[in-house]
């Protein structure tokens, strides 16, 4: 054995290339380089305007210090509305995403229902909340209702998709046991499926509340209510110190909600 090993002393090994065909490999690299150069030169960067903008940015940041909390009444109403939008849309979104996730889980839904469920999820995921908010503001007018509708749709897209994937990975034995005692579809769902996805469901809801709180500030900018609207007005009136105060508060609120949701998720597992 040892002799055999000594006969072949020159064996080497190199990690195979990620793209094994050399023509394809170098062609891809060259193509990428050419595209980057072209993209950079063809985009209309106006260096003069960028140079003019830098002092203006300095002005804005200068005006933002120190942040002003004087108009705290506006701050409070804005945030209360944002909270309400976030809570309502999370609640609605999570409730609706339960049946939709069941529809969209391959292992428990018949094929046509499965495609319908997946379809709903795909549609509600295809647009960024800001675009959806613009549509809803056009449809139901300025204000919190547009915000609630937007974020409900956003929540369905996210929660239902992840929940459906969770359902597809459950321990099938528990469902089988429920079928073997003669339980109907709904009973098997409630006893055999839901307990298995419950922790994930709660974790997702907490995360979604977090996320909706953040998103409610963004959709407010396009007129869907909440603190986003207040922020937009502050910018429009050059009240940079007030705007900065709003931004600080948003960061604070997100931090707090992050902490709470992390704690709750740990408790519930």
């Amino acid at each position, binding site marked *: 054995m040892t002799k055999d090993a000594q006969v072949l002393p020159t064996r080497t090994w190199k990690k195979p290339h990620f793209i094994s065909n050399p023509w394809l490999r170098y062609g891809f690299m060259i193509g990428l380089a050419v595209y980057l150069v072209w993209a950079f030169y063809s985009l209309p960067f106006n260096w003069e305007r960028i140079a003019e903008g830098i002092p203006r940015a300095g002005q804005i940041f200068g005006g933002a210090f120190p942040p002003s909390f004087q108009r705290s009444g506006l701050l409070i109403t804005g945030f209360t509305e944002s909270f309400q939008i976030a809570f309502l849309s999370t609640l609605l979104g999570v409730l609706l995403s339960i049946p939709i996730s069941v529809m969209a889980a*391959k*292992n*428990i*839904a*018949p*094929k046509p229902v*499965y495609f319908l469920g997946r379809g709903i999820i795909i549609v509600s995921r295809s647009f960024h909340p800001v675009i959806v908010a613009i549509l809803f503001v056009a449809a139901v007018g300025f204000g919190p209702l547009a915000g609630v509708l937007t974020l409900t749709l956003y929540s369905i897209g996210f929660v239902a998709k992840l929940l459906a994937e969770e359902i597809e990975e459950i*321990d*099938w*034995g*528990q*469902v*089988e*046991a*429920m*079928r*073997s*005692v*003669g*339980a*109907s*579809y*709904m*009973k*098997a*769902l*409630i*006893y*055999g499926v839901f*307990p*298995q996805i*419950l*922790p994930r469901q709660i974790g997702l809801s907490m995360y979604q509340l977090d996320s909706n709180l953040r998103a409610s500030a963004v959709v407010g900018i396009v007129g869907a209510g909440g603190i986003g609207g207040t922020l937009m007005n502050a910018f429009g009136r050059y009240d940079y110190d007030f705007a900065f105060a709003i931004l600080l508060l948003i960061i604070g609120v997100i931090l707090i909600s992050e902490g709470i949701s992390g704690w709750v998720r740990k408790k519930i597992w």
Partner: protein
Amino acid sequence: MLQITNLVKSYGKNEPVLNNLDLTVEGSSVVSIVGASGAGKSTMLRCINRLVEPTSGSIKLNGMELVDLRGGDLRHARRKIGMVFQGFNLIDRLSVMENVLSGRLGYVSLFQAVTRRFPQSDIDRAFHLMERVGIAHYADKRADELSGGERQRVAVVRALMQEPEILLADEPTASLDPKTSQQIMSLLKSLASEMSLPVLINIHNVTQARMYTDRIVGMRHGNMIFDGGPKDFNQDALDAVYGGIESPDEEGVDSANEERNTAEALS
């Protein structure tokens, strides 16, 4: 009385997993089914409560034909067939009591099931049975906090809650240590005689099959090749059931099983 005649199960165009099987179980006898992995033991048991759809043949429980039942009729029939699984298949996140009461799901309304308002008679029965197998003090513990032997007792009680006319046990001791598995086997045996309940047990442990059951059925490649008392199950019979060429891979059977479990699975 359970009467299986000409039972055939094949997945697609493959070799049938069960080949014209005939089996009759009368009275309250405990029957063990032995055979190598892939011999079709588990498939046969699952054909009885239709977790697996038989291809053809007939299965009669106390005179009622089970093979062509659909929907509500099938669920009504399943109530009378208790099943115990190798992996216990308890609902891990529910309490022991909820697991035990889930054996009544075929009898209560959806509202009662959701709100856990089971009839008092069910709760009495649950406590009675849990005391019988020694797990009553765990009633409010989560099922996944129990040890393997305790979990299998919960599963046995869940099956008995159904007031079954027959009990199927699919390798009930395969996930347990030797001592616990003996306890479960003797529990099944004594429960069978107490409740005059016929019990079918798939089992790999031939020694235990000899010790705890009245009758041994040997299966190989989907055929029944031995049927007799524990005393008759000698070395020759053992060789016939387990010896010789390798049995077909059980993996194939399992994955085919899972494909069938999709879509119409919960119906």
